[in-house]
């Protein structure tokens, strides 16, 4: 397996205003490391404020990292100036959460799909039309001619998101960041988009960074899962292992919080973690999950920040409960 994207100790801090003149750092990402292999999908699962979206934006170099390194296909792109990013931009694409605001409402589908080709000066008018039609076929938007002439507001959320996918696809990228691509789409059509993404991955060998709050879709549509909490990765490993045998108490809670359609549900209370996620301006000391953790070890968890250690092959967790690994 060859590595496509490697992120090392990535930090993204923003400045928030506080008081009359003071500012305070918001640590959206605070030391995240991960790798994505070519043609594979890594899901990043977390709740709002966990930093998963910032991670995705940093991976596409939409925000400048405060610290750490980003390697794309072996090349360090962490601090490349905008002028030298064009090659990277051609190979790394994004599909964004909001199918309503991520497409230009004043452009037709064919104009939207022509944008990337125009930006990178690819093909002549004829070739571009062919490429556009091909991309539309790829995302199963048919009839192609008819769809190309439509404007975004004529399409449903699901169809718009396919246009977004086609736009990302038309440059034949090696990497696509999919930031909550289905969270604003009806449950019944979510699966369809996710299957489509998987088919495209199989056809073109694209590596996906799939950012989601929904661990259930992550289980079915990714190879590995990283669970984020308060700007950190708390657990990362093979998708099925993470869901079937979660190690971090937060992962456990997250999985238990997801309702499955079961008539017995209503007769029992759901095990939940109390409280709300911490403010990113003042994260708790030690393990950031400790104030909400049911298994917090007093004297340890609030003091020592647990490192991410490999407890099983390819399965890392940052928790004091697993000091030596699982055997």
């Amino acid at each position, binding site marked *: 397996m060859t590595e496509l994207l490697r992120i090392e100790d990535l930090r993204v801090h923003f400045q928030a205003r506080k008081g009359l003149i003071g500012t305070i750092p918001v640590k959206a990402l605070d030391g995240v490391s991960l790798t994505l292999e070519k043609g594979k999908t890594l899901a990043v699962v977390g709740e709002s404020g966990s930093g998963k979206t910032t991670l995705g*934006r940093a991976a*596409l170099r*939409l925000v400048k990292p405060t610290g750490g390194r980003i390697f794309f296909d072996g090349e360090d792109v962490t601090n490349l100036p905008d002028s030298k*990013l*064009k090659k990277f*931009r*051609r190979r*790394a*694409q*994004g599909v*964004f*959460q*909001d199918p309503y*605001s*991520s*497409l*230009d*409402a*004043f452009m*037709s589908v064919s104009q939207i799909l022509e*944008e*990337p080709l125009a*930006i*990178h000066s690819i093909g002549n008018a004829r070739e571009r039309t062919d490429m556009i039609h091909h991309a539309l076929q790829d995302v199963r938007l048919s009839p192609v001619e008819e769809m190309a002439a439509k*404007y975004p*507001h004529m399409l449903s959320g699901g169809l718009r998101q396919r246009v*977004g996918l086609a*736009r990302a696809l038309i*440059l034949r990228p090696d990497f696509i*960041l999919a930031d909550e691509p289905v969270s604003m789409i009806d449950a019944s059509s979510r699966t369809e988009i996710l299957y489509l993404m998987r088919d495209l991955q199989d056809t073109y060998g694209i590596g996906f960074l799939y950012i989601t709050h929904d661990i259930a879709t992550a289980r079915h549509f990714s190879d590995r899962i990283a669970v984020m909490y308060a700007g950190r990765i708390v657990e990362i490993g093979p998708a099925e292992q993470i869901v079937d045998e979660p190690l971090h108490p937060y992962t456990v809670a997250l999985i238990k919080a997801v309702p499955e359609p079961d008539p017995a549900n209503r007769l029992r209370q759901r095990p939940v973690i109390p409280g709300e996620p911490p403010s990113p301006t003042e994260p708790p000391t030690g393990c950031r999950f400790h104030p909400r953790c049911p298994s917090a070890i007093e004297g340890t968890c609030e003091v020592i920040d647990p490192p991410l250690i490999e407890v099983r092959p390819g399965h890392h967790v940052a928790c004091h409960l697993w000091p030596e690994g699982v055997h």
Partner: protein
Amino acid sequence: MRGGLQTALTELLSSTTGKVGVTFFLVMLLISLYAIITNPLDFGTRLWNNPAAWADNPKNVPPAWTGIFEGSRRVNHTVFEASEPTEVRNTTRGIESVYTFNVDYTFDEAPTFTSFSIQNVTYHGSPPSTSVSVMRPDGRSLSLYRFVVPAPRNGETPPILRYQQTPFRVHLSGEPSVAVNVAQFLQDEFQVNISSSRLVGDIDEAVFGIPDTQGGGFQPLKGEYQIVVVARSQNERDSIEGVKFVLGGSQFGMMGTDSTGRDLARGLIFGFPVALAIGLITAVMATVIGTTMGIISGYTGGKTDILIQRFSDVLSNIPLLPILLFLAFILGQKLWIVIAILIVFGWPGMAIVIRSMVLQIRSGQLVEASISLGASRWRIMLRHIFPQMAPFVFAQMIFFTPAAILAEAGLSFLGLGDPSIPTWGQILDQGFRTGAVYVGYWWWVMPPGILIVLTALTFVLIALGMERVVDPRLRTVRQ
């Protein structure tokens, strides 16, 4: 839906207010074209503010059409002009060129004045003389006025030219020699004894009437009059090119006249292109600058943003009217200066709104998506951000237009208009300052005001028609 501007136009034409506004606008555009084609560009200095150009017009008279509503017939303003004599007689006393003008006098009152003028006189030898007399319907004939063209000055050699630029013009109604002649006439024909000095002012009543038996006044005498002008010269090469007799009306043209006799209709028509130019130039410039600054400020951020933001904050917080008045006064009453000031104080408000819109758009995912495609910041600003704001910008521009027109009109009304370019505001100002309002010369103050309001309203209506484009909440609900 293709492009923001086209959406805006479609939406605009689908609303009633929009349709009315656009129709008004097109009519105004046509009138403006007509005004520009039919008038010299230095209309203001050459005609409008040149009293000589309006000397033959009656002063302060209402529009001709108002006569319809009157019980008695008022005098139509009539100008009789001839460049060729009706008849040339060779007499013992010289060559007599006779110019006759027939007047069908059916009015219930005397003319407001009568005047006589000649132009382009050429003579060789002794100067020609002219005389004006009237043949009345009652068969009586009255010799009014006699005039001898001034003799050559020392050193002048024939041909002697006179009255080339400005015609020789005599206001018969106020001319003492005419009064003497008329007094004589009254004495001879009606045995009415009025001294010539008392008759001045009543000359036209006497000429076009018969003395009242009871009072001291005159009754208008209706019927065919003939004005006979005889020019007598001694040389057959002598010539008079323009002979003019004006029967001063008590009503005039489409819009009446002001206190200097100016044809208000012409001034009002000329006001159309001026008002449109003021409004559109100001609005286009202010919106273009405002939009550019707003987009740059919002998208670039950082120091540029703070600089533009503070600058426009300061400018937009300045109370406009006092400053406008002050600057127009100090920098001189030039239209372009007024337009420049309006632009300078107009764009910041626009820039502030555009900036906040850009910030909103920038926080949306479209910009992020475009960056990740590799688009340059200029491409994003031009292709993605600007089109989204285009309808709003367009609407703002339309909204700005009446504001500029009203501001200029206000300034003109305070006497700070550009005298070389007449505007509706200036006409109103003159009407107000000469007291036209208090004596009820409505035709002087109403039409320019109505035109200002109509013009402003045109743009307000168009802007209202675009409300739906600008405020998405009002767009037709899509299910």
